[in-house]
């Protein structure tokens, strides 16, 4: 195969539900990827699985597969690779297979790639000398051991490649590095060796660029309204990476869609959520982005060159989540003269009344949105606004304390200054907080598990 077209139509759980079928219908894709798992999504899925052993996957995905049935029938070569499996790739495979059987696609082969969940064997990992220390703070795991909700290693592309080798047409993983969703198909199609560092790095760059969906095609672009001509985005096209056998990549999007693929839109995505660009670490490769170059080679076509790779790390990154109390947030709209100062005073009245009720909240914050508080001190001076959103947020171990806190918003209308409105709608509720604990585990401790069978054979 001379080159492959990989399109990504989901950058997070909650992304546009029509994007996958629109991209498949217009994108001439070999592979569709769908990336659903933010850093803490798995802790939510772990909670759902604890209530129902068949749950714990991204429930958008079976719905998406339903919308993809016409494409799967008209494009028999189309393959889908996604991390929608979350905490339960096999459960997700079973749910998707039920959709496929209903559509008369029972012979289509579906893979589940698991093994990323390191929580069941956590004590064994600790006993084997894996300290699982917090990468950001250096704190020892004992501090939060009893509160852990989920712990998943970011696997690489190997399990995806094995599933494709076993002729899976839909590959459903749990936690994998986002870029590995793209690296897997490239390794499978081109037969790269796991030491072909430069092509692996090139495919990793391609995967990084498309993994957040429309963020590569004009979404989030700070140049959005350059020259006072806003870029149309309502029908934004999602990104496609054309990857050649040596890793050379062109980023594009389907014709006659909104958005744009320019050096500017792709460059912004290249720098999105990276650390040291000389060492973008995945389980597949240590990729060097620092000398990547971009060039516009046609309308909505940008060539990506210059990625270099070095030996992959010996460890997997682990995304661990632990229970950390509750948070609650309420808003009111404060109008009139001195709206910013009045909003801050109103926020303080709320907190003072909670304190008078005998409650000391652990952490609180008052924001006057419209007065520059989205980046405190980070905006140029402006005329005072006539209305601002007062937002008061609190974090506390006690859910009851936060319920008491939320009761103090509405009384501000009658027992605060004039100009308080925007209080209609249901009272907000406290919600549980999952805190993030990034750490590392030796690759030798984690084994990907690949299961491939026809949709007709997957059962819950």
């Amino acid at each position, binding site marked *: 195969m001379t080159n492959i077209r990989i399109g990504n139509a989901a950058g997070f759980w909650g992304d546009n539900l029509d994007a996958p079928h629109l991209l498949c219908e217009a994108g001439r894709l070999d592979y569709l990827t769908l990336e659903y798992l933010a850093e803490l999504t798995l802790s939510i899925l772990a909670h759902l699985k604890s209530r129902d052993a068949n749950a714990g996957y991204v429930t958008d995905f079976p719905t998406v597969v339903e919308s993809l049935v016409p494409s799967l029938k008209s494009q028999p070569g189309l393959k889908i690779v996604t991390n929608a499996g979350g905490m339960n790739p096999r459960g997700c495979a079973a749910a998707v297979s039920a959709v496929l059987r209903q559509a008369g696609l029972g012979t289509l082969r579906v893979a589940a790639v698991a093994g990323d969940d390191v929580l069941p064997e956590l004590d064994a990992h600790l006993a084997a000398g894996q300290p699982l220390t917090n990468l950001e703070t250096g704190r020892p795991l004992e501090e939060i051991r009893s509160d852990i909700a989920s712990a998943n290693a970011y696997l690489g592309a190997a399990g995806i490649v094995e599933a494709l080798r076993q002729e899976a047409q839909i590959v459903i993983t749990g936690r994998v590095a986002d870029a590995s969703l793209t690296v897997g198909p490239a390794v499978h199609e081109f037969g790269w060796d796991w030491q072909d560092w430069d092509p692996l790095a090139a495919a990793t760059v391609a995967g990084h660029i498309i993994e957040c969906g429309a963020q590569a095609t004009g979404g989030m672009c700070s140049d959005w309204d350059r020259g006072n001509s806003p870029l149309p985005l309502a029908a934004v096209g999602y990104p496609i990476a054309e990857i050649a056998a040596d890793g050379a990549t062109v980023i594009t999007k389907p014709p006659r869609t909104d958005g744009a693929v320019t050096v500017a839109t792709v460059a*912004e995505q290249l*720098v999105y*959520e990276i*650390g040291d660009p000389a060492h973008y670490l995945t389980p597949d490769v240590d990729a060097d982005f*620092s000398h990547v170059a971009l060039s516009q080679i046609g309308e909505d076509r940008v060539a990506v060159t210059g990625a270099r790779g070095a030996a992959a790390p010996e460890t997997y990154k682990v995304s661990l989540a632990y229970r950390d109390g509750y948070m609650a947030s309420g808003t009111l709209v404060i109008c009139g003269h001195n709206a910013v100062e009045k909003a801050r005073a109103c926020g303080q009245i709320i907190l003072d009344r909670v304190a008078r009720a005998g409650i000391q909240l652990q952490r609180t914050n008052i924001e006057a949105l419209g007065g520059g508080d*989205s980046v405190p001190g*980070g905006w140029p001076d402006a005329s005072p606004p006539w209305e601002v959103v007062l937002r008061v947020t609190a974090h506390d171990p006690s859910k009851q304390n936060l319920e008491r806190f939320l009761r103090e918003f509405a009384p501000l209308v009658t027992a605060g200054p004039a100009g308080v409105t925007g209080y209609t709608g249901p009272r907000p509720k406290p919600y549980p907080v999952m*805190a993030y604990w990034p750490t590392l585990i030796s690759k030798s401790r984690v084994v990907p598990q690949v299961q491939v069978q026809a949709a007709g054979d997957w059962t819950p």
Partner: protein
Amino acid sequence: MSDTISLKDIAHARSGDKGNAANIGVIAYTDAGYAFLEQELTPQRIAEHLAELRPQGIRRYMLPGIRAMNFVLPGILDGGASRSLRIDSQGKVLALSVLEMKLPRPENLADMRPD
């Protein structure tokens, strides 16, 4: 003529989060702008602009192939996505704030503006 410019006159940018760190990638429109920003847009200047967020240990990494520099700001997100009490818990709008920074007006400003 003003003796300052805004960073947005010569660059565009994007920001996001990684745990409790934020990153801000700043991309110059031209080679001349990139050379100017190499001198002017130091971690110290970013730290001054975002002083109220109490940044510490800002690091700057260069990506010459796309005329970009990546600033990593550890510990700036009030605990990160799920624990932050701030509206912009993931640092999504930090880039736009940084683009409003004032810089001394360069003599060759015309060579730094976008096409």
